[in-house]
């Protein structure tokens, strides 16, 4: 077993554990913390896949900004301090279905023949190549993405702001 393999299994185990925590944790804030674990573990997976840039972005944006936002949301929507049921009534069916789905995907994955898999070789992508591709070949989608972000921002503000007084009369 090579070092890379060891690292992979450790990281994968962390990611799965984090995921389990997200969906099973009894407390919402714990779930958020487990999410951070999972996200960081995924960043580790990116590094194993020779995409350091992605790993960085993952940690900065996901594990940082997004999670903070989620924690804010939790804080803002807290109704009471009383412990309440975190899991809905359909969890047995959902568990079965999710297991089936995962099993099906894994079965498909393992029985399929994937290209480039023979030697376990991967190719490192230089930062500058990625950057130039993003701003040349993918310039238009990139701009659109910025627009999406902008619209989302405006939309969030519109949705979240307080109602005008005259609208309350409904």
């Amino acid at each position, binding site marked *: 077993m090579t070092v890379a393999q060891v690292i992979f299994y450790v990281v994968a185990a962390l990611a799965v554990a984090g995921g389990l925590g997200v969906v099973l944790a009894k407390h919402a804030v714990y779930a958020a913390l487990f999410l951070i674990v999972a996200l960081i573990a995924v960043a580790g997976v990116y590094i194993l896949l020779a995409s350091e840039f992605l790993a960085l972005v993952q940690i900065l944006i996901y594990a940082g900004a997004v999670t903070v936002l989620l924690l804010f949301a939790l804080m803002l929507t807290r109704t009471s301090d009383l412990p309440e049921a975190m899991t*809905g009534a*359909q969890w047995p*069916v*959902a568990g079965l*279905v*999710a297991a*089936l*789905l995962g099993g*099906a*995907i894994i*079965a*498909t994955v393992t029985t399929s023949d994937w290209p480039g898999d023979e030697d376990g070789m991967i190719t490192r992508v230089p930062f500058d190549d990625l950057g130039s591709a993003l701003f040349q070949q993918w310039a238009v989608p990139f701009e659109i993405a910025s627009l999406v972000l902008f619209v989302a921002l405006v939309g969030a503000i519109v949705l979240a702001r307080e109602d005008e007084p005259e609208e309350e009369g409904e």
Partner: protein
Amino acid sequence: MNMTDAWLLPLLPAAAFVALTLLGPWLPRKGDWLAVGAIATVFVMVLLIAADFTDALAAHGEEFAGAANSTQWLEVPGQLELRLGVHVDATTIVMLTVVSFVALMVQVYSLGYMKGDSRYGWYYAVISLFVASMLALVLADNFLLLYFAWELVGVCSYLLIGHYNHLRSAAEAAKKAFITTRLGDVGLLIAIILLWRATGTFNIQEVIAAAEAGEVGREVLTASVVLLFLGAMGKSAQFPFHVWLPDAMEGPTPVSALIHAATMVVAGVYLVTRTLPLFQLVHGGPELILAVGLLTTFMSATMGLVMTDIKKVIAYSTINSLGLMFVALGVGAPAAAMLYLFTHAFFKALLFLGAGSVIHATERQDVSSLGGLWSKMPITCVTFAVGALSMAGLPILAGFWAKDEILVALLDNKAAFALAMATVPLTAMYMARVLILTFFGDPKEPESHEHAHEGSPFIFVPLVLLAVLTVFAGFVAFDQVGELMGFPGGIGEIIFLGHPHAFHFDWNVAIGSSALVLAGLAAGWFAWAARPSVPGVCLSMLRPVHALFANKYYLDDIYQAAIDRVVLSIARLVAWFDRNAVNDTGIDGGGYTAKFAGYLMKFQQTGKMPNYALGMVIGVVALTLVAFTLKG
């Protein structure tokens, strides 16, 4: 005027009908002169055609079968050709003469009788249409035109019976007449189509020829003949279809004279005469006619005896006469039937017109409110008496010759002869009864008696003319009379359908029947004039029998019940079934099923997002599994 021009005959009154219908209200005198003029012209043309016919007869001898002329009406190439055409032979000539003459008399009579009627113009329009249809009926060379005209005379009869349409009874009677005859017509139409199917033609002569050549299957022929006879029974008011004719007296009296005595009701007799060869090909065919005729004759005589409405008595006497004609046809004596038809037209029209004169004068038609009219209305009285005695069969009057002719023809069939003889005194008795109760004795309602008076010349001139004919028409049976009138071989050539010397005279029968007639008349005189208490005594002794007769053997009630209880119940059942089973259950059921399915399905719309999400995922999983399975 040639025989082949006979197709013009119906067109004249038809044109008068169209003109009266469209322009009637704007014509002077509402256009009655048009109608009378048309029929008068037709009468003259009929005489010309008859002359042409006798010439042809003289030229060709006994082989002469008649002249025909037809035109195409409708064609499906190679499949079907319907033609309208006329055929003139001896029978036709007799019928044409009767129809045009009686129609002329009745139309003239109506000038006086219908004067002041609120629908005077319409009356003349329909009468014209009737004459046109009736002429077409007797001229028809094929079953199609015959059926066409057959139905048209039916509808004219319907319209005229219902002439006084503000009366519920008139409306009901009209309906009854139409529906009853229509039931017979179902048979007629089926018979016509069956014969067409077997022979490929509607032409009457060709159909008969084909049947005689054995081209028509036995069962088909039997069925057609029976069905054909159904049509004749309906039109000619034979038992058990006779119920409509007495009710038809709701119409104006001239209409009764024309349609329900002289012309339309004998259409059945005419039809059977025309197709008699077909009946004779079928085993039991003539016997069927004979049985129906005898039954009708006897039953109608008994019912005529107890009726109190003067017109209904005459109506039953008409059924009686029609029955006799069928009896003659049943024993294979069409000549006798035609002679009776010919003379019957005159004396029966005379009776009705006479009754009409009484009704016109007194506005009563129940014999129990009439009486003693002879002093007020001598002409009517005498002419009516001539008609009644002729109907009874008193010697030398027209009815006597014709009736004896039929009795002679019956000599071979003892039972039938006995039954026919039995009706002779009955007939005489009820004719005496109606004559006595109407014109003799004391007036039962003095005030209406006071006002009674002879009508206008329009009314009594036709009466006199018909009375004269009633006295003398019977003599045409003798060749000598015909030759005197200028017909070679006698008028019998025409009447007797190409059997010129078929007139038999049997002194024994004549004396026997005359004796019975006299006995009947005497009994009538005894019961209703000499000893007025007798009917009451008889009535009390024979109450059930009287009730049976007076209620027309309960046939009307049975029919009414059959329609109200059975037919309408079935109809309501079907309508109920249609509404509840077919519609509400079947058709709406489909809708309700969809609706209920929707009701059930809506509960999967929980509104809870996780449920929807679960559904989606299950779908994805299922699809994945399917894809996975297919991939192998």
